[in-house]
């Protein structure tokens, strides 16, 4: 068989078996039990919650992230093995949502770790969650879910952003564009 065909099969396999980390990062985790259990039954699609990041493929960031949690999220994300995917769940991961002016929650998840799929809403319905997984499967099939490659490629930038948030350091925060201009 050709390399391409192998790749295709491998993609089909990995899209049909998405194991997610059992990490309730925010209040969105409340809609996970219904999605996983008898009403919506995510296991139909081969989606299963796994205890540890080593075993998992998908990280469902369920809702707002306090900075303290972000540290754990980054730790867990880095412990997951490639290929790994992130789904940003709820408005809070997109722009802070309800907590746009909270001093302790980050506002845009994609600044800290690459996000493949976002689900809008507060909180999103189970159908939306399943839809997002189907979308992710579609993206894996087409080879578009490349968040994990992005994390490797722009590792320095992600690390810098994480550090800024972790340390709550106001003085070091400068828009990157200005830096670029100064250098050039």
């Amino acid at each position, binding site marked *: 068989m050709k390399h391409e065909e192998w790749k295709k099969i491998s993609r089909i396999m990995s899209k049909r078996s998405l194991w997610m980390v059992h990490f*309730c990062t925010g209040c969105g985790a409340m*809609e996970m039990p*219904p999605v996983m259990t008898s009403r919506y039954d995510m296991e139909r699609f081969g989606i299963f919650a796994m205890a540890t990041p080593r075993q998992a493929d998908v990280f469902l960031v369920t809702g707002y992230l*306090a900075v303290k949690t972000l540290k754990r999220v980054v730790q867990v994300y880095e412990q997951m093995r490639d290929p790994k995917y992130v789904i940003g769940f709820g408005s809070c991961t997109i722009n802070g949502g309800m*907590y746009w002016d909270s001093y302790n*929650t980050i506002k845009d998840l994609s600044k800290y770790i690459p996000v493949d799929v976002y689900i809008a809403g507060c909180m999103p319905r189970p159908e939306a969650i399943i839809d997002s997984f189907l979308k992710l499967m579609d993206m894996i099939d087409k080879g578009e879910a490349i968040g994990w490659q992005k994390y490797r490629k722009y590792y320095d930038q992600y690390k810098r952003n994480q550090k800024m948030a972790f340390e709550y350091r106001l003085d070091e925060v400068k828009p990157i564009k200005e830096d670029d201009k100064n250098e050039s």
Partner: protein
Amino acid sequence: MMKEYELFIGPNHPGVTGNMSYHLWAEGDKITRAETRVGYLHRGFEKLMEKRIWMQNVPLVCRICVPEPDVNEAAYSMAVEDLMGWEIPERAKYIRTIILEMARLSAHLLAVGGVAAALGIYTAAQWGIGDRDYLLDIFEQITGARVYHIYIWPGGVRWDLPKNAKELILKVLDYLEKRMPLYDDLIMHNKVFLRRSVGVGIVPKDKAIEWGVTGPNLRAAGYQLDFRRLEPYAAYDKIDFEVPYYPKLGDYEVLSDGSDIYTRTAIRMLEMQQSIRIIRQALKDMPEGDVLVKENKANKWFGWKVPAGYAYSRVESSKGEFGYFVVSDGGKKPVRVHVRGPSYTHGINVMETIARGMNIADFSPTAISLDVCPPDIER
């Protein structure tokens, strides 16, 4: 050389409810020390509420406790009503009762399923959460949302129940009542479950009140104390219901000295039956009329000023006493809103104390049977 090893139960761990962490030091099979680590969900609610006008805070408060958001709305509304001196319409009181009891039902289904799952009966959790979804459907019909309802407002409830609400609710209640014996067979009469739960995870009875234990956990320790009775709110003073407590466990056998995982679970099962009974009565007795006080109707979009003063309101949630301490200086925004979550004591000082000497296998079931919910600790 440290002989103990450290175990982290959470935040990324199946044995913890929500985003919190127990840091355990253990030797062999026994825990020697435990520390609860919280703050993973800290959003600074109380700070945000000081920045928002009184009405804007209603959508915020419900996010404090996810499994049972309505108690927050109710408690906050009651505190504001207290300061404003509003007396809410009779119909609104009944609707609040129905909503709060439905929330209790759904939270208890989750909690009982959680305890069963922590001990290994995943089937019970699957059934419980599946059945809970029917309640969420009704919430959706009534309020428009599955989880965050924002239905109970200062001055009453947001809008009246839909016309078919009564039939819908009764249908689900009938269904749930039919399911209860199945849960009993699967969980409460399961010999292996009894082996794991009887006499395990004991909160000392004589210390229970001093440690600030409330809710079903306190009743499992042998006190018939329920804020629905002690300080009736909504329509609870007009409704006939029982407060199950140890050793009056109804159909369930008394197998231990109480205050263990088994008794707490039994109390929750009994409370579900009572909730069904309360909702039935409330539906029957509910009068017609307004559901919102006129003052709020007129001013809701502009925000009212609340007279200066202190108010503390409490609601008996499925986990225990949910209290709101509201301070106003007479302005459009609160000066201080302080939330007392029941898990604040259950999750931190109670768990840290009773964990000492506990088997690591029993730790997670105990924490889940105390129904520790982290967001109401750190808010």
